[in-house]
C-alpha cells in the first residue's frame, strides 16, 4: 500500500498551534480502549474562556411569540488561523420592555482556546431581533462570510479579510422580508458557488399580538403556531457576482410551512445536496434534488414528514448523520413536549423507517421540548452519538395546568452500535445535568485536542461552552478540506473513512441542528485504530480523491488536486 507521501498533494498541518498564554489545549496522546465513556466529562468553560454573553429575549410580559424561538451560534474560522471562532446571535428589546438594554450579537475570536470579544472591532452591528446564523464563503474570496437571520431584515456579513465585516445583504438581495429562523449554505446547482436556503416561520406582527392562554384565569401564554399562517421559505441562487436571485418558486420549494430547522445532505447518494426542513405543526419537508436546478418534495412518500402514526408534529431542529455506518445519511428531528423526537433510519432505497421507539431515543424525549441537535462522536469510538438541547417555552407551566418544567436537562445518546442508544447525560459531569432553557447547539473541537466540544445557547441566559475532557482517549482524525478554487470552505464535500471493513461517512455542511452551525472541519473517531486505511473525498467540484494509511491523532489539511483524480 502506498503511503500518503507518494505523489499526493497533501500537507500535514500540525494540530498544535501556538501555545499562547492561557491555552487550555491538552496533548493529544490517546490511550487505548474504545469504551471510554465513563472517563468523558463535559465541563462548562464559557465564562472562564472569555465568553461573557447573555442572551436577551426582550421579554416584556406581553408574551410575543418571538421570545420563545431563541437564538443560535456558529463556529467558524473567520480569521483563517485554523481554530474555530464563535458568533452568538442575540434577541432585542420588544415593545413594552422597560429594563436596561440587553446585549447584542457577539463575535469571539479564538485565541488558543480562550476567546476575545471582537464584535466592535469587526464592525458588526446588530440591526434587529436575531435568531439563526450560518457561515460560508459565498463570494469565493477565501474567507468565511456570515449570514444572520432576524425578525426584520437579515444580514449578510461579508468578510473583508482583515478582521472586519460589512453587511451587504441589501446589495446581495438577501435581506428576506419574512420572519427567518434557520439558514444554510450549499451549492445545490453544483456551479461552484454557495447558494442559500432561508427558513421562514410565521406571519406575525408585534403590533397585533393576540392574547393566548387561560383567559378566565388571566394566565397569558405564548401563542401556538396554529394561531398564525406560515411563511414560505426562500432559496437564493448565487449569481456568482456577489448577488443572489430568489428562485424559490422555480426551484419547486415554495411552501407555506412553519419552518424552524433546516439541513442540507445528500440522502440519496446521487452526488447533489438534498434539503430537509423541520416545520412546527405542519409536515416536515424533504426536497430531493433532481439535479436540474429543481427539487421534488418527497417527505411524505419517503416517511419523514410526520410521526409513525401519521401525526404532524412540532418540528424544531434537525440533522443528517450516518449513525449506523451503512453509508446512508439518517435523520433526526426534535419535537415539542408529549411528542417523541423522530429518529429516521435511511433504508437506502429512497425511504426511511421511523426508529424513534426501537432506537430508545424517543420515549425519553417525550416529556421534553427538543431544539438543537446533532450527530457527533463524543467518545471517538467510531460511532455517531446524538446530542439534543432541551428547554420549554412556557415559564408558567403550572399556571397553565401543564406538566413539565421550564428548564430541562439536555440529552446525550450514546450509540450502542446495535441500532439502539443509551441516554447518558447524567454520567458526563455536572455541566451536562444543568436544567436550562436551551435552544441551539454548535459543535467543534475548539481547543484542538482531538475531541468535539459543544456550544449550547440558552434562551434569556448565558451559553454553555462544554469542553470535552476525555473524548480524545479514542484515536481520531480531523480533516480540513481546502478546495482547489481557493474558497474558504468545501461545503458539500463528502468524506468517507475506512478502517478495515468499517466505514464512516461525513459531509462538510453549513447550517444544521437549530439556528446554528458547526465548524467545517470533519472529525472521525477511530477508537483503537491508529490509522485510517483509506480516506475517500468527494469534492464539491466533482473530483474524487483517495488517501491511504492516514495516521490518526492529527488535523490534516487536504488540498484538492487541481487536475484529475488523486490516485492511490
Amino acid at each position, binding site marked *: 500500500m502506498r503511503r500518503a507521501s507518494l505523489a499526493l498533494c497533501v500537507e500535514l498541518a500540525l494540530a498544535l498551534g501556538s501555545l499562547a498564554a492561557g491555552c487550555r489545549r491538552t496533548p493529544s496522546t490517546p490511550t487505548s480502549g474504545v469504551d471510554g465513556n465513563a472517563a468523558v466529562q463535559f465541563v462548562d468553560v464559557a465564562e472562564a474562556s472569555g465568553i461573557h454573553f447573555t442572551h436577551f429575549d426582550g421579554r416584556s410580559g406581553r408574551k410575543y411569540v418571538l421570545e*420563545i424561538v431563541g437564538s443560535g451560534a456558529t463556529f467558524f474560522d473567520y480569521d483563517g488561523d485554523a481554530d474555530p471562532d464563535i458568533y452568538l446571535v442575540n434577541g432585542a428589546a420588544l415593545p413594552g420592555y422597560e429594563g436596561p438594554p440587553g446585549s447584542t450579537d457577539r463575535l469571539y475570536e479564538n485565541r488558543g482556546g480562550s476567546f476575545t470579544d471582537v464584535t466592535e472591532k469587526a464592525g458588526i452591528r446588530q440591526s434587529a431581533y436575531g435568531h439563526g446564523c450560518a457561515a460560508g464563503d459565498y463570494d469565493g474570496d477565501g474567507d468565511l462570510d456570515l449570514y444572520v437571520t432576524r425578525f426584520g431584515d437579515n444580514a449578510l456579513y461579508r468578510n473583508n479579510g482583515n478582521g472586519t465585516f460589512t453587511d451587504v445583504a441589501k446589495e446581495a438581495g438577501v435581506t428576506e422580508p419574512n420572519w427567518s429562523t434557520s439558514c444554510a449554505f450549499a451549492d445545490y446547482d453544483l456551479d461552484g458557488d454557495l447558494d442559500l436556503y432561508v427558513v421562514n416561520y410565521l406571519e406575525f406582527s408585534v403590533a397585533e399580538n393576540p392574547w*393566548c*392562554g*387561560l*383567559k*378566565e384565569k388571566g394566565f397569558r401564554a*405564548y401563542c*401556538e*403556531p*396554529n394561531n398564525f399562517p406560515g411563511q414560505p421559505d426562500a432559496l437564493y441562487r448565487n449569481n456568482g457576482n456577489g448577488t443572489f436571485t430568489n428562485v424559490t418558486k422555480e426551484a419547486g420549494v415554495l411552501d407555506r410551512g412553519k419552518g424552524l430547522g433546516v439541513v442540507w445532505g445528500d440522502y440519496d447518494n446521487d452526488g447533489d445536496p438534498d434539503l430537509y426542513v423541520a416545520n*412546527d*405543526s405542519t409536515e416536515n419537508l424533504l426536497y430531493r434534488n433532481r439535479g436540474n436546478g429543481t427539487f421534488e418534495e418527497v417527505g*411524505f*412518500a*419517503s*416517511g419523514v414528514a*410526520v410521526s*409513525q*402514526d*401519521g*401525526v*404532524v408534529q*412540532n418540528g424544531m431542529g434537525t440533522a443528517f448523520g450516518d449513525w449506523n455506518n451503512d453509508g446512508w445519511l439518517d435523520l433526526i428531528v426534535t419535537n*415539542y*413536549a*408529549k*411528542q417523541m423526537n423522530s429518529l429516521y433510519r435511511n433504508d437506502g432505497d429512497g*425511504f426511511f*423507517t421511523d*426508529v424513534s*421507539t*426501537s*432506537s*430508545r431515543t424517543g420515549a425519553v424525549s*417525550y416529556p421534553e*421540548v427538543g431544539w438543537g441537535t446533532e450527530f457527533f462522536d463524543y467518545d471517538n469510538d467510531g460511532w455517531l452519538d446524538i446530542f439534543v438541547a432541551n428547554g420549554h*417555552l412556557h415559564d408558567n407551566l403550572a399556571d397553565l395546568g*401543564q406538566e413539565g418544567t421550564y428548564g430541562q436537562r439536555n440529552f446525550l445518546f450514546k450509540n450502542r452500535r446495535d*441500532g*439502539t442508544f443509551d441516554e447518558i447525560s447524567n454520567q458526563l459531569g455536572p455541566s451536562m445535568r444543568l436544567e436550562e432553557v436551551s435552544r441551539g447547539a454548535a459543535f467543534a473541537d475548539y481547543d484542538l485536542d482531538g475531541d468535539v466540544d459543544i456550544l449550547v445557547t440558552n434562551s434569556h441566559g448565558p451559553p454553555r461552552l462544554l469542553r470535552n475532557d476525555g473524548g480524545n482517549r479514542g484515536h481520531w482524525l480531523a480533516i480540513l478540506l481546502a478546495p482547489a478554487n481557493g474558497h474558504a470552505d468545501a461545503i458539500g464535500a463528502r468524506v468517507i473513512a475506512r478502517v478495515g471493513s468499517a466505514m464512516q461517512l461525513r459531509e462538510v455542511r453549513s447550517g444544521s441542528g437549530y439556528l446554528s452551525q458547526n465548524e467545517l472541519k470533519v472529525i472521525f473517531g477511530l477508537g483503537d485504530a491508529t490509522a485510517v486505511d483509506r480516506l475517500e473525498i468527494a469534492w464539491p467540484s466533482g473530483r474524487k480523491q483517495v488517501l491511504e494509511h492516514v495516521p490518526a491523532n492529527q488535523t490534516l489539511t487536504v488540498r484538492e488536486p487541481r487536475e484529475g483524480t488523486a490516485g492511490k
Partner: protein
Amino acid sequence: MPFPRRKANRRRFAGGGRWGAPLVILLLSAAGGFSLEPQTAADAYRDGVDAMRGGKTADAITLLRRAVELDPNLGKARGALGTLYLQLGRLDEAEEQLRRARELEPGLVQVSINLAQLCARMDRNVESIAIYRDVVRDHPELAAAHAGLAAACQRTQQYADAIASYRRALEIDPNAPESLANLGSCHEALGQEDRAVECYEAAIKKNPKLAMAQGNLGGILQKRGEMDRAIPLLEEALRLNPEFIGARYSLALVLIEKKDYGRAVKELEAVVARDADHIGAHYNLSRAYFRVNRPEDGKREMEAQRRLREISDEIDLRQKAAAGEPSSSQRQLELGIVCERHGRTRLAIEAYRAAVALNNGNAAAQQKLASILLREGRLRESLTAFQAALRLDPNQAVLHAGLADALRLTGNAEGAAAEYQAALRLDPRLSAAHAGIGTLFLQRGQLDMARAAYQKALDLDPQAHAALDGMARIRVAQNTDLDEALSLAEQALRIAPLPRYHETIALAHWRAGRKAEALAAIQLAIAGDGRNASFQRTLAQIQGGTGSGK
C-alpha cells in the same frame, strides 16, 4: 409549541365486547315450558325469565310486558325487561324500565349495574359513575361493581380512580383476567408500560383467550422494537378477535419494520375498511403502497390522511379553545358544531351537553343537542332536549317540527300531529312539517292525504328527502310505479344517506320481484341501524318470501 395532543385510544376494553355483556338476574324456573297468557304477574315474570334463558327473546318480551301490565310495581319484572331491551340495543326502552325498576326496588343490585352500563353506552359517563359509586358504597363486596366503576372511570380518562377500583375488584376476585387486562390498559394510558406489561402477562396466564391482553401486549412490544415477541401475540389476538383494529394496526407496523410490505398493505387495508378515520393506518398504508411501487394508491392514501388530519386539527383547535375557557358554553357549542360537521357525532353530543350544562339558557346548544339526538335515534333524550329548547324559544317552528318527529317515532301520533300543526302555524312554509304530516297519514293508510302533504313539502323544497321517500313508499304501498318509487328513494338517499331510505329501496325491489337486490338493500339499512325493528321485520319478510308483489 402547542398544548399536547391526546393520543387516540385504539385499545379495547376486555370483556368480549365493547360494552361488556350486561349481567342478567336468572331465577331458575323449576318447571320447563310456559304460557303466553299467564294469569298472574309472578307467573308472567317467571315464564319470561325462562324464555330469556331459552333464548326466546320475543316471547320473553311479551311475557315480561305482561307481568308489568299485571303489576306495574313489580320491580324485578321491569328490571328483567330493561335488561333484555339493553341486550337488544333498545336503549330508550331499556332506560325507562331500568329506572323505574330501580325506583321501585332499590335493592336490585343488578338493575343498578345494568342502568350504569346503559348510561355509559349513551355517553352519560358522569351518571354512570355516580350509579356505580352508589352500588359500591352499598355493596363493597361486589367485584363486578368495582370493575364497572373502574371501567366507567377509564372511559373518562380518570385513570388513577380506575386503577384504584380495578385493584379493589381484583382483591375481591383475583381470578378476573378481564379486570387485570383493563388495569393494564390504564397503566398503559398513563405511560406506565412496565406495569401494563405485567398486568397483560398475568391476564393472559389466567385466560389465554383474552384477545385484548394479547393484542395490547403485542402493541407495546412492537413499540419497543421487540418484533419477534410481538408477532405471535398480535396474531393470536386477531385469531381470537378478527375485528381488533388496534392489534391489526400494530401487526402492520411490525410487518413494515420487517419490510414485508405486501402483507402490511393487506393488514392496513383491513384496518381502514373497518375504521375509515384511522389516521395512522392511512399514513402507513400510503407508505406501504409507495414501497410496493403503487404510487397512485400511495398518493390517494396520502390525500385521505391529510384530509383526516385537517379535520383532526380543526377539532383539536376547538378543543383547546374550550379548554382555555372551561366555563364558556359558547366554546363548547362551537366545538360541537365543528365535530358535528365532520361527523364526529359522539364528540358533538358531548360538547353540546357540556354547553347546555354550563348554560341551560343556551338555546342554540339545546337545539343542536335535540336535533343530533333525534338523528341518532336517541328518541327519549331528544324529546327531553326539544322540550327544553322550546321552553327557551317557543316560537321556533323547526323545534316544534323536531319535537313532532321525535313524538312520531316514539309512537305518539297525536302529540306529533299537534306539534306539526304548531310548527306550521309559526311557519306555513316549513317543508319538514308538511313531510312529517305526510308520514303520519301514510302510517294511518291515508295515502291520498299523505301524497298531498308530501307534494306540498316538495313544492316548498324539492330536496325534502323525507318527502321523496314518502312518495316512494306510497307507490310501494300501492304496488304501482315501482321503478319510480326506486328512483325517488334513491334520490332521497343521495341527499341524505339515512338507513330508512335503504329500506324503501329494499321494499321497492322486493315488490318488483327482485329479491337479491332487496336483500342487499335491507342489509344496508340494518348496517346503518341494527336496532331498527322495522328493518328486521322487512328482512324477515324478504327472506321468507311472504307478501311479495309478484
